[in-house]
């Protein structure tokens, strides 16, 4: 239970980091909070030849509303997000989801960028990013790019991040006040990895009502169901949840079979939709 040998670098600027990444790319791993990487190194599931510790980079940990986006610096600690008034006011779904992210102890060092770059299928921050259509900002020596979260996650612990790229920020869209949200998950114990997590966002797009339901832990990456309609037909939405979940290709592990995961997804999907709708100003047409 001790890591294999590696070389250690501790850059203090983004420029230094991306030039290290361009040199070591494939053979390197980035270390931020270390809550996932630490255990993976100890168990030698990960055996990089180079570790690049980004904890000392300055200016990468901010949380700020910039125009119609909430910008979360990659090094923003999860505990800071939990306590952030901006996050509570502008992206309340994320504040609600943070209650389920790890434990008080792990949120202290755990970072937003680390969670997104690690891409655990059951992770809450990636789920919210996909549900709300956030962008992931990446930087390398060849420049910057922003990738929509739905395209960023491609599988379990797999993203489109190239080996020479650094995740610098996650930008969440700030919707008009009046939307409502809900988040539920089922895990073995509080703070454990979710077996299934479901997030809901109900809001307005132009004249139409938009319902977005995100499903985490079912497939190898977060999946989102978006329903846009002029009115909320409760029975029709339940039907769409059932149809959507039926089409998912669920994970199987010692905690839950695929069929059970789908059952949880249907159950939680209906539950969060009801809660979000109950909190909203929309009238239902049953």
């Amino acid at each position: 239970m001790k890591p294999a040998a590696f070389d250690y670098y501790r850059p203090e600027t983004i420029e230094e980091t991306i030039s290290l990444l361009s040199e070591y790319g494939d053979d390197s791993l980035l270390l931020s909070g270390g809550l996932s990487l630490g255990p993976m190194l100890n168990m030698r599931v990960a055996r990089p030849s180079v570790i690049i510790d980004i904890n000392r980079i300055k200016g990468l940990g901010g949380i700020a509303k910039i125009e119609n986006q909430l910008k979360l610096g990659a090094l923003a600690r999860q505990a800071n997000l939990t306590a952030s008034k901006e996050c509570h006011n502008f992206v309340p779904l994320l504040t609600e989801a943070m209650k389920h992210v790890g434990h008080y102890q792990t949120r202290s060092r755990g970072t937003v960028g680390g969670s997104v770059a690690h891409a655990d299928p059951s992770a809450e921050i990636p789920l919210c990013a996909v549900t709300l259509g956030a962008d992931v900002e990446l930087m390398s020596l060849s420049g910057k790019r922003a990738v929509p979260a739905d395209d960023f996650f491609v599988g379990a612990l797999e993203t489109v991040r190239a080996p020479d790229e650094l995740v610098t920020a996650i930008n969440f869209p700030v919707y008009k006040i009046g939307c409502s949200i809900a988040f539920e998950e089922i895990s073995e114990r509080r703070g454990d990895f979710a077996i299934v997590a479901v997030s809901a966002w109900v809001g307005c797009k132009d004249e139409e009502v938009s319902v977005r339901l995100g499903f985490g832990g079912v497939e190898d990456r977060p999946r989102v169901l978006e329903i846009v309609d002029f009115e909320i037909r409760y029975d029709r939405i339940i039907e769409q949840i059932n149809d959507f979940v039926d089409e998912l290709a669920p994970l199987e592990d010692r905690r839950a079979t695929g069929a059970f995961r789908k059952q949880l997804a249907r159950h939680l999907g209906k539950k969060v939709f009801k809660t979000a709708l109950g909190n909203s100003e929309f009238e239902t047409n049953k």
Partner: protein
Amino acid sequence: MRVSCTVNGIERYGYAESRTLLSDFLRHELYLYGTHVGCEHGVCGACTVIMDGLLTRACSTLAVQSEGLELTTVEGLAEDESLDLLRQLFSVNGALQCGFCTAGILASTKHFLNKYPNPTEDEIKDMLTGHICRCTGYAGMVKAIQEFVDLSKEGSQ
């Protein structure tokens, strides 16, 4: 390589490979055996210390990461007189039996009470989910922390 850091207010240094874990560095280089190593993959919480103001699983952190930073381990908490009462309440409420997990729990509790001086029972329970104790069933810890909060309030009035 040489690693220097401030542990419990005292400047210390020791030698570490880049792969040396902070938990091993504290125990084997600095001879601070209060930090216990349980699962060694960040789950049990026994090795929890405070580094640079953040709660840290010492087993999932590299010793080299502590360069130039301030650390507090259970030995530092032992010299914190304001925590004498908390330790006494842990004792009388049966909040520990074998004591293996206690070092980490005290570090977490200290950090937690600094942030939330007036926690609800649910918040205390939520904080304790980050630690595994196989002796007590946690009820004694919740009670000890609640009594500590109540008595601290009375004391400050």
